[in-house]
């Protein structure tokens, strides 16, 4: 309580505390999300690796809601209760999500089937149903704008991670398929006892890989994944830039937004002047 009063007396120190606590939270969350995303891709690549994803999920919850992170959040008024509730809701949602992954991977489909891509779709659904509402909880108080932006950044980061995971999965698929095919060809060549030059095998593999990539790149699923990645990467960057701009307000440097306003004015003025100069030059010989 005393701390809070002290913070109100010194707004700059309050802001510093807030940014520190949010940054602590963000750091631990980001680390956990990073691990989760990596695990997702791994899980998508092979069914048996679902356990890895589950372990990463455990990391996420133990990381993002660790006592240290919760303590740092606790210093931000009005956030701790929401966060505890959120954690509870998240864990429930996570358990449901895990059940679905288990059901999906246990349905007898092989590693090449589309079931592993469902992981990304399920994750998006989970995020939209369970995490996004928490991030959209209206914020109150002096720092509400900053907190909302931070939540938006977290939202964007999640979507970006999912898009990266899906993109990475698709990009690795031709590699995996072509290597598997090459292994079969090598086995075959052993049976035939036909010895080929290593370079020939390499040439064969590159050709196979190229073929699989060409097939993938013309597919609608690739197009959608690429478009999603570009959208989410851009969205994440915009959100991150907004936070950076807020932080930079405390430094004696102009933000991109401010500079863009100047550039826009400069562009308009230059265009106007160039147009007028051209008109004047055209009129000159007649004068």
């Amino acid at each position: 309580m005393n701390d809070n009063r002290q913070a109100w007396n010194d707004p700059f120190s309050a802001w510093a505390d807030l940014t520190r606590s949010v940054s602590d939270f963000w750091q631990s969350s980001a680390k956990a999300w990073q691990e989760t995303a990596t695990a997702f891709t791994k899980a998508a690549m092979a069914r048996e690796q679902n356990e890895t994803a589950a372990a990463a999920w455990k990391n996420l919850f133990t990381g993002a809601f660790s006592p240290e992170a919760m303590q740092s959040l606790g210093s931000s008024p009005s956030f701790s209760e929401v966060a505890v509730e959120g954690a509870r809701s998240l864990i429930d949602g996570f358990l449901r999500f895990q059940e679905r992954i288990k059901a999906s991977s246990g349905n007898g489909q092989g590693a090449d089937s589309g079931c592993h891509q469902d992981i990304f779709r399920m994750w998006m659904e989970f995020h939209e149903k369970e995490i996004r509402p928490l991030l959209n909880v209206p914020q109150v108080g002096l720092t509400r704008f900053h907190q909302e932006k931070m939540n938006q950044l977290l939202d964007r980061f999640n979507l970006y991670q999912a898009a990266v995971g899906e993109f990475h999965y698709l990009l690795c698929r031709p590699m995996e398929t072509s290597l598997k095919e090459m292994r079969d060809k090598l086995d075959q060549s052993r049976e035939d006892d036909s010895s080929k030059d290593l370079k020939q095998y390499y040439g064969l593999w590159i050709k196979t890989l190229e073929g699989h990539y060409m097939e993938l790149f013309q597919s609608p699923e690739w197009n959608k994944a690429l478009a999603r990645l570009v959208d989410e990467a851009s969205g994440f960057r915009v959100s991150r830039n907004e936070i950076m701009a807020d932080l930079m307000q405390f430094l004696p440097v102009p933000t991109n937004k401010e500079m863009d306003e100047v550039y826009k004015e400069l562009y308009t003025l230059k265009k106007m002047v160039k147009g007028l100069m051209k008109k004047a030059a055209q009129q000159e010989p007649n004068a």
Partner: protein
Amino acid sequence: MSSQASYPESLLKVFVEGLEKSRERIFKSRDVLLGPLDTEIATTPCEIVYQEDRVKLKYYKPANPENRITTPLLVIYALINRETMLDLQPGRSVVQNLLKEGIDLYMVDWGYPTRKDRFLTIDDHVNGYMDNVVDFVRKRHNVDKINIMGICMGGTFSVMYSALHPEKVKNLITTVTPSNFETSKGLLHIWTRDLNLDHVVDAFGNVPGDLLNIGFLLLNPARLVIDKYMNYFEHIDNKEFIENFIRMEKWIFDSPDVPGETIRQFIDDCYKKNLLIQSKMELDGQVVDLKNLTMPLLNIYGKYDHLVPPEACDALTSKVGSLDAQDICLDTGHIGIFVSSKSQKELIPKVISWLRERDGGKAKRTKH
């Protein structure tokens, strides 16, 4: 069961032999990589004769003044990558070959856009910079019209310019120039359908060159990310190969950012709405009517171009107002058309003879 057990023994033997050879190659490569290498690009001497903002105009003096083509030629390169590709390597330089044929050569260097250029539109490039450059060359040579050669996106800009200012263009040459964007042949055409570039422009301001490079590498990762460098390693002890390889690498990854509003309009109006070929594209309220292209037109493209496939190029000649419009399809790709020695032996003589036939004389009224 380990996967290694399934490998034939003979393959392992070959693999070990390969390793031995690689070791020798790496040993020899020390002399090549640590020794002096000539990897300079764009070495043909030129003069900067005009500059506006970041845009520069390079002038190359003809090497053969006796057999000169009287009308100067202005080359408009794309905003993606740089015009140095036309002067990549001595002995295999489009610039040097054109100079040998007695051409007064001007080339636009679009420079490196910065954040302040993000609001520049296609109109600013076409009716602004290009028009000023054309006026400068006309005045310098005291001629009413000049020849223009556009390359890739620069060719598309040249088509727009020539349609809006036909009175200033004597002959138009378009090389690997997309004009019909409604095709499912090139991956770029397929991918851009679902891409929302608005978000990228909003997030980055200008579209970063590195981002575009990643996109280009993705067009064929097996060749461009793996095989290309395997080939580099294969020839790592060959000085000449390494020099040419590095020159190409320097050019490929010298990628200026592209002004945000320009690429936004290019993707929306050209790739998504295909307005140009329908004569519906507008620049600052002016409609780009291809029927205004009444000057002789030579449209050159590559049969194996994976970026701008023939289907994206060959519709132009049938849509223009000119009766002297010709298509030439060469057995090459998007870059090979300018850098391979075989293509240069075909491309340059064709361009020169076509220009000579129309230099000063009346244009032949033939449509191929």
